[in-house]
């Protein structure tokens, strides 16, 4: 029980309080407190796995957390904490910068659904049961739809509808896949069948191969839709660009990881059987192609947040490659570096949009002149997210490339290298236009350093991840 308490208490209470009509300033404080406490309590919860060498920590029959899950749990809560503690500043500035004033009711709703969204994401990583995994993923869709829907204008509605429909259909396929895996487990392996991950892993070799393979395909497709793999990514740019900056930060920095984590759960299962051909070559090549396609789609971009959305797709592709290579820690390393940099970028983009009062890239010029600090942070984030040394993402991508080169996935390596180059060039074209030159019209500087607090923290994190032995501690087991 204390497991449910420590995981659910703070988000639920926070959501309840923020939905209730206190003064908005109080609500903002409550939310920050709630999310930070949530992160801490989750950390305490998985501390045995993180600190001692306990391979897996079981809470109930269907809830347990293993090492990789714990890592992702930490990451998710960190991302959520960063985004949500930046959110109040963001909404305050919305008002300050003469953008349209946000009714407190909407903001309250935003906080409530954001907290529940975080809760759902937390359950993704502690669910030790494919069915519950599916349930929590679907729950994340519903709550995050609330975030995308935030600004309630036509674009937001359209984005939300597409997000909801495409993802629900995809998720439905994932459900079918889950059922197929369940069916495969009933064939002799486990009497009455089971969806429990540990049991399935335990008797992986006895699972009925045909059903398992079908199930894998459906799950890959379903969760892939949620993760935004190339032809299924269609909802992603819309949702990311329409959601308010903190929400898009969470979508890109946490939600995609959840979907990919679900894919990893299934892959991990199929890898143990003797027909694991499909779960190696398919994700690797598909991931590389996704990265390439994302890179090409980055070339002609008009929206500053769509830009980062596509770069998220690129990184999803890379993570998919890592999953296909069957190395959870590389997958996590990439996710970690991507999330940290990408959250910083989305939050900064939020500030930039507030400065220039537009998302249109062709209107945003001369950031270095408008705000040197912001420009510097933006440049660092962009360099980090495109995998430039000395930032963390470089190390992760390099490890992934090296592993796939050693796994004789030459084609994938080639495609990935091209994709990375294209992404870098495309991003640097757009970013350099944002940074250099002079703004097209007078920009009023408002607000203190507070709006740069979280982004600069995250930028420091990327540098630390790149230049210190921190990743070493993670990747050691590889």
């Amino acid at each position, binding site marked *: 029980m204390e497991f449910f308490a420590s995981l659910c208490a703070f988000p639920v209470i926070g959501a309840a309080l923020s939905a209730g009509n206190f003064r908005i300033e109080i609500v903002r404080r409550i939310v920050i407190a709630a999310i930070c406490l949530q992160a801490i309590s989750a950390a305490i919860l998985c501390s045995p796995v993180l600190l001692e060498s306990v391979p897996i920590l079981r809470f109930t029959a269907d809830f347990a957390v293993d090492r990789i899950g714990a890592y992702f749990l930490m990451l998710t809560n960190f991302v959520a904490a960063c985004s949500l503690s930046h959110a109040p500043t963001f909404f305050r500035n919305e008002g300050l910068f003469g953008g349209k004033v946000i009714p407190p009711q909407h903001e309250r709703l935003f906080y409530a659904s954001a907290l529940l969204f975080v809760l759902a994401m937390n359950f993704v990583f502690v669910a030790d049961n494919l069915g519950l995994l599916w349930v929590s993923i679907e729950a994340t869709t519903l709550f995050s739809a609330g975030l995308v829907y935030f600004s309630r204008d036509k674009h937001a509605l359209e984005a939300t*509808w*597409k997000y909801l*429909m*495409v993802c629900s*259909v*995809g998720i439905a*396929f994932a459900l079918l896949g889950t059922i197929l895996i369940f069916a495969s487990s009933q064939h002799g392996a486990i009497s009455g069948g089971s969806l429990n991950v540990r049991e399935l892993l335990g008797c992986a070799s006895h699972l009925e191969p045909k059903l398992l*393979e*079908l199930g894998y*395909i459906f799950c890959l*497709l379903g969760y892939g*839709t949620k993760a935004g793999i190339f*032809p*299924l990514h*269609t909802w992603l*740019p819309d949702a990311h660009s329409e959601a308010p900056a903190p929400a898009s930060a969470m979508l890109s920095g946490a939600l995609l990881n959840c979907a990919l984590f679900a894919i990893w759960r299934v892959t991990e299962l199929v890898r143990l059987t003797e027909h694991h*051909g*499909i779960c190696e*070559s*398919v994700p690797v090549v598909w991931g590389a192609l996704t990265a390439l*396609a994302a890179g*090409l*789609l980055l*070339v*002609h971009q008009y929206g500053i947040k769509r830009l980062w959305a596509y770069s998220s797709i690129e990184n999803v592709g890379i993570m998919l490659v890592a999953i296909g290579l069957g190395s959870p820690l590389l997958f996590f390393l990439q996710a970690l570096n991507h999330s940290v940099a990408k959250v910083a970028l989305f939050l900064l983009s939020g500030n930039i949009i507030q400065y220039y009062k537009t998302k249109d890239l062709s209107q945003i010029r001369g950031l*270095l002149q408008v705000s*040197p600090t912001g420009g510097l942070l933006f440049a660092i984030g962009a*360099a980090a997210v495109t995998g*430039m*040394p*000395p930032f*963390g993402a*470089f*190390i992760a991508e*390099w490890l992934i490339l*090296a592993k796939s*080169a*050693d796994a*004789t996935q030459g084609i994938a*390596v*080639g495609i990935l*290298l*091209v994709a*990375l*180059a*294209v992404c870098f*060039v495309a991003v*640097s074209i757009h970013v*350099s*236009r944002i940074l*250099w*030159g002079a703004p097209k019209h007078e920009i009023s500087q408002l607000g203190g350093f507070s709006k740069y607090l979280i982004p600069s923290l995250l930028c420091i994190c990327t540098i630390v991840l*790149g*230049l*210190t*032995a*921190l*990743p*070493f501690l993670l*990747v050691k087991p590889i």
Partner: protein
Amino acid sequence: MNAAVIFWGTIVFLALAALAAFVLSHKKNVSNKVMSFLLCAIAAGSLSALCSTGFHSYTYVTPAPFLLGVFPVTFRLDGLSRLFSALLSLILFSTGLFSPGYLNHLKGKISFGQYWVSFFLFALSMYGVVLSADAITFIVMWEIMSLSSAALVASDHSHHLVQKSALIYLGATRIASGLLCGGFLWMHSLCGSWTFSDWNFASAQAIFPALLIILGFCIKAGVWPFHIWLPYAHPAAPATVSAIMSGFMIKVPIYGLVRILVQGGLSAPEIVNLAFILGSVSAFWGVLFALVQNDLKRLLAYSSIENIGLILLALAIALKARAANLPVVADIAMTAALFHCLNHGLVKSLLFFSAGAVDCQAHTRDLHKLGGLARRMPWTMASFFIGSFSICSIPPLNGFASKWLIYQSLFQSTMLFGSYIEKGIALATICLLSAVGALAIATFVKVMGVGFLGMSRSHAAEHAQEASTGIKISQGFLVVLCAGLGVFASHAVKFISQLSLMSPDSVAPATVEFPLPMPVLALMLFSTCLVIYLVFLQSSKVRIFKTWDCGFGALSTKTQASSESFAQPLARIFRPFLRYETNSTIKGRDRRHFPEEITVEVKIVSILESRIYLPVLAVISLIAKGLAKLQAGSIHLYLLYVCSTLVILLLLGTVL
């Protein structure tokens, strides 16, 4: 005193300097003097540290907390890295002397905070690259070098052209590093190690990674046909930056080639011949386009392409000779390549400094607006002239010494190579080299004559003042180095050849002799000049009068030869390469006899750019547009994508 000290001393101090610049930049008071002093101090320190380490080779691996993520930073200090880091220190030192005087005229245009931060990072990364002993350290430092130099190129980013140049440079360098990554990963999967010394390129399947690596290096070095970025980046950057980029940064790929491929025992004839062809073509192509340039720094950039070509050529000869088992020739060629790196590094920074001095005094780099600076900026003129002589490889300066070594290696290989084809190729290359040398002379005589001699062509050039003391000192420093390396070439050559470059751990280092009597020659020339001057010219009666104008009255600057008209006869000869076109229009009644207005326009098209690179880019962006069409906005379409992907996956599932 060992590698660790150098590593910490240099890298960390530079990092700290960058940090200091960053901190100060927030207070908006970055003093160029202080920063330049820091730069000089660090450069001098690292130089002295290098000198004090003797000749042993050290390898140094950083302890656990100081990792690049997972990988340790490994450094190797041996002859090769000593040579290059010494060159870097020299250039940085002179840059430090040059900066304060030069940067003043950029005040208000560029933010000195950003400039110095990226500058120190740039210096740091260059030291890092030439000291690195494994692929990870190398590529990390390499990428930092690219990013920081791109930031420096874009220092004055208010101009649109500067932005464009910086982006072209960024793109080129990213492609280069992509190819390098490919090659490194491939080698790692072949040899199972990241350390350069474990890589062996002699094996047959190592040819493809070798190809990737050499292509990557060629792009970064600005070898034909990948040189497109260079003439953009150099004029856009401040003189200090272009001096370092052209003087050292484009030598870093050469370092990489020697460290990885040559010392890795590359012998595949395909690769060697490729390098040979690329080197000779870019030597010719570079100087040919340099001849017809009118922007001073652009011209210097093209001449860098020429010299990089020469260096690559020498490397290729060395590899050929080693493959043909002619160690003597190989050593000569290798020494030639590295000695030319050294010389060109010093000379080119000298030239860029002088160009920068001209730029900040006459406020233009356009040869059509310069002229007559000889009387107003004698020091700058003198240093620029000496630099030009050296780069035209005029004896007894250092340019000649390395050029002679290249000639000598070709001469020897003509005699010693077995096959007649090889002999013929070597002879043809001698012919080509002499033509290149003559073209270089033409180019730099043009610059000297049009830029510095004669009458001033613009008001600004009319009122140029001599540059400040710091600038003069830095130029003098480099001039002394050039002359010294030229006159005492025999010692320099012996020293370089003993750094055992072909294979890092060979027991008996080779020794290359430089038999020419440079000191005697210099002495004879100087004393004869002195005697002749004292005997004849000093005592002669001199009358000052105007230049002969055929009695038409005062000559205007229009009657002087312009840079285009000077180059015209040669440009005519090489019209097919240059796409050289002049179209002149004469206005006026009865146009031939009573012209009122005559305009002549010279057009030179870079074929590579217009015929190859732009179309390729267009195709890529077309593909991107096509892909973007998928995102058409209709949800029904999106759902259809999901279904079709499902079908494809199911089919794959049946196949696999």
